[in-house]
Structure formats: structure tokens, C-alpha cells
């Protein structure tokens, strides 16, 4: 998590989803930073320029997948947490006008290594290091000195998010109130870590409602499909069941055969379905983000968590068992003479 344990300050009309500022205007870097630094209870202040999309055009995407973060290099660890670089990389100097650090996924996608020259908005930049992190946002990020980012994206002396670290034992809530009530700091909003996480909560809840609804519909459709398939399979094998009955097989035997068959179909279908579903998930993710499918494979268990796979598998086997009960009961009640007569 970026800006761990810190308060974030953004423009009044911006929203922050976890660590990403969305919408809103820019903040004047120097005056805002200095005013916040003067508030009692503030331990450190990190100005950050956060830009979505890496490339020659700065587009606001529905699903941003590439980011640039401009942060004063001495504050990188404060903002991003411990920084590990792959291979022989190094952090750029704070006054560097060309060195940047690239996220692992971006570097893999474009085949960047230390020393690779890239071009952003007409600026020739050099990759001085590749971030070794599993954090999704950082792995798709270009991190560079703040001034360099401000030059490249043409935001001189402007930032759009400021991370504020409170002094130990000063509650974040107190700090946000102090920032918001400071009359010298205008048009800003300050959010605690909990508040910026909570912003996404209603969206997540709405999504969850939709997910539950979709799951219920899929569950019912699956149940109907499994029952239809089983009913067809049972009716196609009426003669087999009648023959078993004629041989003296107890009714429970036929019931057991049908249930075992549908369970096996569930197990096989579950394994194949989860494999194909997971593949479809990363193909869709790749289509949405333009990140090659191969880059998603190492994180397949993050995209489709094993616990979710297990839940799905259990649900599929359950659906097949429940879906098999009625046809199995029908198979059990068949009158053999009628079936055998109908066969001739």
C-alpha cells in the first residue's frame, strides 16, 4: 500500500481511491507543502505528481494501467515503502534530468533493462533500475524525480497529491482536521488512510451486490442446465436402468449411479471450467489493459485467488449433485416393464 500510515492531501474536488488521485486540479507545490509542514503534529511531507498513462499522450483512461509518479528521490522510501531494484540498478539522483526507475511488469512488457533509453513526451530518459515488487500499481509505474516529472508533463511546481506523515501518536484524524481547518491552505481535502480506503467501499458494495445477483442467476441457469443434461442422459439410458432393475439392482443402486456420474461430471467440469475461466480472466484483463497475457500468468493466483477457485469448484460439484437428484429419483421410479416394452 502506498503512503502507508499517512494522511493524503489532494485538491478539494479530487477523489482518492486508495492511493490514486482521480480528477480535481493541481496544488501549488511549495506553498502547500510549507503550510502543511508548519502544522503541529506533522512529521514529514512528500509532494507527489501522479500521472496516469505512460506514453506520448496523457490520456485519462477508464482503466488506467500505466502510471508515472514524480517524487523527490529522498522521499521515495517514505512514500513507497522499502525499495528493491532488480539486478544492478540504482536510484536516480534527485536532480537527474533523464534517469527513471521502471516497474517490473512495464519493464517485462517493453523489454526494458538498466540503461535502456525510452522516450516520454519527447524526453529521452534512461532506465536506471527496475523495481522488484509484487505491488500491482508500482509494477506498472514509472517512478522519477519530482522535478523531472513536472517538466515532462508540463506541471511546473505543481503536484496533485501530498503525503503527510504524522508524528508518532498523533491520530491521522486530528491531522486531517487540522489541515482542513487551516485557513492558509485553500481548496484542499485531507483524507486519513481509512477514509481513502473507504471511498471505494460503496463502489465495492455495489459491485458485490451485482456479483451476488450475477452469481445467483448463473447458479440457477447452471442448475437448470445440469438437470436438463442429466434428465437427457437418464432418459437416453432408460433401457440400461430397466435392465439393472430386471437384474435385481436395488433402487438405491440406480440413484447412486446417477449421483456418482453427475458428481464426476461436476469434478471434471469444475477442473476444466476453472482452468478455462482463469484463462478467460487473464485474457480479458489483457484485453482491457493491453498488457500481454504472458505477463499475467505469474500472478494468476492473484487474479483468481485459490480460495475463490475452491469455492467455485465446491459450488460446481454441489450444483451437479443437486441437479442430479431429481433425474436420479426419476430413474429410480421407472417401471421396467413399461421401459422394456417401449424399447421394442
Amino acid at each position, binding site marked *: 500500500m502506498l503512503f502507508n500510515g499517512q494522511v493524503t492531501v489532494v485538491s478539494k474536488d479530487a477523489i482518492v481511491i486508495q492511493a490514486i488521485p482521480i480528477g480535481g486540479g493541481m496544488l501549488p507545490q511549495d506553498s502547500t507543502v510549507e503550510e502543511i509542514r508548519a502544522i503541529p503534529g506533522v512529521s514529514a511531507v512528500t509532494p507527489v505528481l501522479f500521472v496516469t498513462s505512460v506514453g506520448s499522450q496523457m490520456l485519462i483512461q477508464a482503466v488506467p494501467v500505466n502510471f508515472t509518479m514524480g517524487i523527490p528521490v529522498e522521499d521515495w522510501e517514505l512514500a513507497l515503502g522499502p525499495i528493491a531494484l532488480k539486478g544492478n540498478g540504482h536510484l536516480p539522483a534527485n536532480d537527474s534530468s533523464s534517469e527513471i526507475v521502471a516497474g517490473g511488469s512495464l519493464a517485462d512488457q517493453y523489454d526494458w533493462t538498466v540503461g535502456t533509453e525510452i522516450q516520454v513526451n519527447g524526453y529521452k530518459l534512461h532506465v536506471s533500475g527496475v523495481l522488484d515488487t509484487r505491488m500491482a500499481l508500482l509494477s506498472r509505474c514509472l517512478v522519477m524525480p519530482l522535478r523531472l516529472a513536472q517538466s515532462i508533463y508540463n506541471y511546473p511546481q505543481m503536484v496533485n497529491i501530498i503525503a503527510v506523515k504524522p508524528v508518532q501518536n498523533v491520530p491521522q484524524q486530528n491531522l486531517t482536521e487540522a489541515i482542513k481547518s487551516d485557513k492558509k491552505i485553500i481548496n484542499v481535502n485531507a483524507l486519513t488512510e481509512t477514509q481513502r480506503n473507504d471511498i471505494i467501499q460503496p463502489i465495492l458494495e455495489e459491485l458485490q451486490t451485482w456479483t451476488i445477483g450475477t452469481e445467483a442467476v448463473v447458479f440457477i441457469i447452471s442448475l437448470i442446465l445440469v438437470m436438463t443434461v442429466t434428465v437427457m442422459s437418464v432418459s437416453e439410458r432408460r*433401457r440400461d436402468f430397466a*435392465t439393472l*432393475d*430386471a437384474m*435385481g*439392482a436395488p*433402487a438405491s*443402486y440406480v440413484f447412486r449411479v446417477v449421483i456418482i456420474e453427475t458428481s464426476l461430471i461436476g469434478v471434471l467440469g469444475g477442473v476444466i471450467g476453472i482452468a478455462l475461466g482463469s484463462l478467460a480472466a487473464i485474457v480479458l484483463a489483457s484485453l482491457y489493459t493491453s498488457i500481454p497475457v504472458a505477463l499475467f500468468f505469474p500472478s494468476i493466483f492473484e487474479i483468481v485467488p485459490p480460495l475463490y477457485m475452491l469455492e467455485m469448484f465446491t459450488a460446481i460439484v454441489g450444483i451437479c449433485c443437486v441437479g442430479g437428484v431429481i433425474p436420479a429419483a426419476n430413474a429410480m421410479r421407472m*417401471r421396467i*416393464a413399461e421401459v422394456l416394452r417401449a424399447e421394442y
Partner: protein
Amino acid sequence: MKIRTVNLTRSFRVGSSEITAVKATNLEINEPKLVTIIGPSGSGKSTLLNLIGLNDYPTSGEVFIDDSNTSQLSGSERRKIRGARIGFVFQTFNLFPTLSALENVELPMSLVNKSQKEQRERAMKLLETVGLARRHDHRPKQLSMGEMQRVAIARALANKPEMIIADEPTGELDSATAKEIISLLQDINERDKTMVVVATHDEKIIDAADLVYTMQDGQLKPKRGSE
């Protein structure tokens, strides 16, 4: 095993009309003989076999097996009798397509909880008896019609039944193969002292039979050697 039917009647409702397939039939077989029931299609032969094989319930009348009235029996008791004392051979063989010949023969034994070893030994022996030991691992699809019927006969014999009920066992076979099947049924009847009741059109079976009945419009009449 002794079979006796008293005023056995079986009717079916088809739409608004009622069809009586078997009419007040009295039949008595007291010895393990080869019995044939002949008659045109739809005359009620199969219905009669299903009634005496306890596959069906009469509309009225009774079926006695060894003097006990089967109409008093529950479904599971009837199943037990079918599994242990009666073997069925069908015109269309009714083998399980996913099982090998050997497994098809083993199946009735697995239903009466015989040990795996016992099942295997007896099934192999029965396949030898019907001349198919070498093809024990073949699935029905890989067998000829005659071979399939021989596997079906071996399966019917699996639990050493006292009676074999065969419904048109040669109906799907050419005459040479039919002759082999008839001779097999005759052997079973004579060697194992198993009662064999066959519904058929086949003249060759009629010639081989001890007792011959004709069935016409649901009515059974003795034709030859009746008791």
C-alpha cells in the same frame, strides 16, 4: 422352481381406451423344462413374460412362485427374487456398452455382493461355456450380434438362476447364429436343470421346446406337451 398363474390379467390404458394384453391366463410349469410361447407381435407374449418374471404387476390374478403368491411381495422382495432366481435375456441384448463382456457378466453378481474373486472366476467360466473366453475384454460394440447374445445369456446365468426368461432371443440374429443360441439355451436347460421360458417366432426353438403355448389376443393356449 415352479411357476403358476391364476387368472392372470394385465390391462393398459391407452388414451381413453383400455387394452388387455394378457387375459385371465392360467399357466403352470412344474419342472425345469424348455417352454416356448409363440404368437404374433402384440399378442401379449412379452407382457406375460414380464409378469412371470416379476418385472410387472398384474391388473388382476396372481403369479405363484413355488406356491407363494408374489402379489403379496414388496418391490424389494420382488427384486431379490429377480436378482437371485431369475435370469433375463432380451431381444436387443441390453448389454452395458461401457463395460467389457467380462464386466457385463460380473454385474449381476456384484449386485448380490459376491466377492470380486468369485465374480471374476464365475464370469470367466460362463464366458467359456458360451465360447467367448477369448473375447472377455471386448466391449459390446466390438462383438457380433450372436456374440452379444451369448454374453447376455452368460450374464443371465451369473447368479445360477432357476429360471431363464428370454424374450425373442433370436429376433435380431441370422439363422446360423440363432441355431447356436437355441442350442445354448437347450444345453442350459438340460445340463443345469434350469427352466427356460422363451417368447419367440422362431420355428427352430419351437421344435426344441418341451412345452409350446400359443398366445393370441392376450389368450394363452397350449399347443404341444402342456402339463
